[in-house]
């Protein structure tokens, strides 16, 4: 199989380039893309990429594989390899630190903006803040996000305005706290989202939905936020 990997070492390379490597893949096994990277690293230890849990939980190995973002560790070859060729690039739209490792600062700055924590000034009860099963259910499909950045880096609105548009990952978290019955800061949260960029730069193209390795739907969450903003203002 031919594997084409994006390589860039700012200390030695003038510009990024694609390195083509012919790789012997063990027969009869449907390896994950992360396994392929591990095989490549045995050949060339200078290849840099992030990985940790190797089971789709930590969100470290977000990559662009044959043009589509996903987690290398849970994406089988059979799903992405086309015509015996695999092209691996870093997540698009973020600055590359080295090879497949990107600088996630902009992504985290947008995440930070939505205040991704419970805001409740009431004195904490002795045991815990209770929530009805129905209210708890409202958080399903929101809290599971692992912040791998596959969605935001597949979003053209985030590519063009990464410092202004919060992006699908940040917005699904924003709605996770807007929808939480225990949170008391809904008004302030919405006031911070009402500008023309933070939420409304979403044009609903749903790349985020198509790439999310956890099967979440950020576009739907953004729709809910938009409805809250419209209700608040009409």
């Amino acid at each position, binding site marked *: 199989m031919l594997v084409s990997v994006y390589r860039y070492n700012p200390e030695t390379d003038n510009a990024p380039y694609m390195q083509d490597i012919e790789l012997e893949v063990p027969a009869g096994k449907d390896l994950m893309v992360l396994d392929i990277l591990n095989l490549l690293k045995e050949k060339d230890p200078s290849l840099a990429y992030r990985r940790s849990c190797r089971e789709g939980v930590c969100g470290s190995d977000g990559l662009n594989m044959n043009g589509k973002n996903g987690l290398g560790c849970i994406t089988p070859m059979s799903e992405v390899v086309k015509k015996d060729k695999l092209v691996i690039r870093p997540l698009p739209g973020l600055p590359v630190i080295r090879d497949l490792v990107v600088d996630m600062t902009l992504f985290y700055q947008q995440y930070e903006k939505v205040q991704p924590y419970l805001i409740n000034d009431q004195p904490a009860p002795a045991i815990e803040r209770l929530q009805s099963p129905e209210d708890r259910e409202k958080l399903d499909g929101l809290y599971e996000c692992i912040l791998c950045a596959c969605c935001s880096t597949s979003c053209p609105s985030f590519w*063009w305005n990464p410092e202004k548009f919060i992006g699908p990952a940040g917005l699904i978290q924003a709605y996770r706290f807007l929808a939480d019955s225990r949170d008391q800061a809904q008004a302030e949260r919405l006031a911070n*989202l*009402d500008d*023309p*960029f933070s939420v409304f730069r979403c044009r609903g193209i749903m790349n985020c939905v198509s790439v999310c390795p956890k099967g979440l739907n950020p576009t739907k969450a953004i729709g809910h936020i938009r409805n809250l*903003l419209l209700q608040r*203002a009409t």
Partner: protein
Amino acid sequence: MAVSSITNLGRSGAYDWMVQRVTAYVLALYTLFLLGFLLFTDVDYASWGALFHQTWFRIFSLMALISMGAHAWVGLWTVTTDYVKATAPRFLIQALCGTAMFVYVVWGVQILWGH
């Protein structure tokens, strides 16, 4: 912290969003009406003139014209903020779009009520 912006139509994203939707409905209605008129009326100078002679149609036309201006401003503002990164050219293009929008609306009023 909310992102600040002073060149979009309203100060809020929700406002721009609402304007874009409402004006879209007005433009769709106007387009459908004109299509129907062209299909089911024998169009000549007399019938066309009679249509534009009626006050309700002049009001409808002006509403469509203003909707077009607002709709185009929200849309083109979005396109320029996506694709034109340098402030000076972006502001210049936005100023040109705004001027065109204003000229069309005033010119339209003149056409509709000038004679």
